[in-house]
């Protein structure tokens, strides 16, 4: 009844993405001396932590067979709210951060209610929300970048040393968030219900899951996670930036799909998403270190993305 250990590892859904990631790392290690250093890996994690965190929320929503195009915009708005409140309205920084998180969660809630109450397709709800929030960000910020942040807001950008390598507190928080959601999805009833909902809302309903509440909950939690991404962004860039996040919706979906989660819902893991985000970060960093001109970076990234999923697909075939 129990599979052998190697077999189990091979058949975990993250095996394929992981193989792709390892292959990419080996390749770049050969191509650039600077690649395989603790400092460089710490850097890559810093670079993917914002999209990675957004991708946690995106994973939750995609697991329910939804999609979120508004996450980058919500994050940008959250970042502006927390920084403006602290810098311009003089709110205590922690309160300002809490307000930013609450605003993001509220937008998530709004998405969830529209999806649930009127049964609208998530693609359209979040597309509309993307436009609304984008506009609100620019109107509210008057297109001004917010600077001179209090230290509490950039704390997550500070570093501590782990065996000779500087790691930011933000990187740590990101990793912890991934572990938290891996736990929630894999080890709690709530996680099971998310998967069941993604498999079939009708089945979930018939088995007595409160699907409406669950959907609204998932979108709200996702919104809250976007708020955390906003804080990570603010602490990484040191400013509140109204231009932020414009391609992060597609980037986060890319991380999710590269991580082996199905866009049709019900199948996938949040650790896969972490690997998916890292794959993109490793490509970008490695190609840059190799000195590849930017337009060729785009070309090669395109090819590598396809190759990465091919590796995943082939590794799945073997275990079938």
């Amino acid at each position: 009844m129990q599979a052998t250990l190697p077999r189990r590892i091979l058949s975990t859904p993250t095996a394929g993405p992981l193989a792709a990631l390892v292959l990419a790392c080996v390749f770049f290690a050969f191509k650039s001396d600077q690649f395989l250093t603790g400092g460089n890996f710490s850097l890559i994690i810093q670079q993917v932590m914002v999209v990675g965190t957004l991708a946690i929320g995106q994973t939750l929503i995609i697991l329910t067979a939804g999609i979120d195009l508004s996450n980058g915009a919500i994050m940008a708005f959250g970042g502006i709210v927390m920084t403006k409140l602290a810098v311009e309205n003089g709110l205590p920084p922690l309160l300002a951060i809490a307000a930013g998180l609450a605003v993001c969660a509220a937008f998530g809630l709004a998405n969830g209610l529209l999806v649930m109450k009127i049964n609208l397709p998530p693609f359209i709800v979040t597309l509309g929300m993307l436009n609304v929030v984008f506009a609100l960000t620019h109107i509210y910020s008057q297109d001004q970048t917010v600077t001179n942040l209090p230290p509490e807001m950039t704390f997550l950008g500070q570093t501590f040393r782990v065996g000779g390598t500087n790691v930011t507190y933000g990187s740590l928080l990101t990793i912890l968030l991934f572990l938290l959601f891996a736990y929630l999805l894999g080890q709690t009833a709530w996680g099971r219900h998310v998967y069941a909902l993604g498999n079939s809302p009708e089945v979930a309903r018939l088995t007595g899951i409160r699907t409406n509440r669950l959907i609204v909950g998932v979108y709200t939690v996702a919104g809250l996670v976007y708020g955390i991404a906003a804080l990570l962004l603010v602490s990484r860039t040191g400013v509140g930036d109204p231009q932020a996040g414009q391609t992060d919706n597609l980037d986060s979906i890319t991380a999710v799909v590269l991580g082996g989660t199905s866009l049709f819902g019900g199948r996938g893991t949040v650790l896969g998403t972490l690997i998916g985000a890292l794959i993109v970060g490793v490509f970008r960093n490695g190609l840059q270190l190799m000195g590849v001109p930017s337009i060729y970076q785009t070309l090669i990234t395109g090819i590598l993305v396809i190759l990465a999923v091919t590796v995943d697909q082939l590794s799945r075939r073997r275990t079938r």
Partner: protein
Amino acid sequence: GGNSGGGGGQAGAAKVGLITKTETNPFFVKMKEGAEKAAKAEGMELMTAAGKFDGDNATQITAIENMVAAGVKGILITPSDTKAIVPAIKKARDAGVVVIALDTPTEPQDATDALFATDNFKAGELIGQYAKAAMAGKPAKIATLDLAPGITVGKLRHDGFLKGFGIAEGDPQIVCSQDTRGDQAKGQTAMENCLQKAPDINVVYTINEPAALGAHTALKADGKDKSVLVVSVDGGCTGVKAVKAGQIAATSQQYPLKMAEQGVTAVSEYAKSGKKPSGYTDTGVTLITDKAVSGVDAKDTAFGLANCWG
């Protein structure tokens, strides 16, 4: 971060990085070419990166970090978000890398070691003055085809234009304002809709030449290409040819090759002697038109074509 800083040179050529706003604007492509040529002449290795869209701060930060990790001596950057990029630049400079802004100043300007750029407010002001004079007192109905919310170049040029024209934001003479993201197709759609709204538009300010060409196509389809005054900024070869053909009345020419060459040379100098560049170098802006008006300095399209980029 605690990465091997900019000082730790690799064996071989010293490296210099160029980070542009986007990959898609010929302006930046020219800039890259200029940098490539200068790097070769100086015996340096050029690394390039670009944002995904005008305003993409996150990708520019990532590029700065990766270039520092790769051990560059200096970074040339056209900042997409002039304030938001500042902390990342500071980190790079702290790691011993010299950072020079091209095309667009950071805020504050001294966040970079040096700046090589057009004066964008002046670029707008020149075409504003030109338009005012060319209208010769006729009542104006103005459309402004702008960039996008929150990108400083767009605002600087727009404000400069208004100042040059002698009006303030909200003036009733401005009958239509629309964002184009500097894109030709979007410029065309914006112009079409403006014309539908106010068929008597007679002055069109455009953020750059792609937007101007889009506007021209729309005007032509409406039979108004001869009667409406279009002004723009850039001075690319396509744009100057359009000035020559009468499609654009006047354009403020910029010199991206100069920015790039001077930037690379400065980094090379730093690599060799340790001497850092500083201050603002105005790479100049010239009004190009074949229908000069009195009181506004301008050069003709022959000059424009001789100095154009792209």
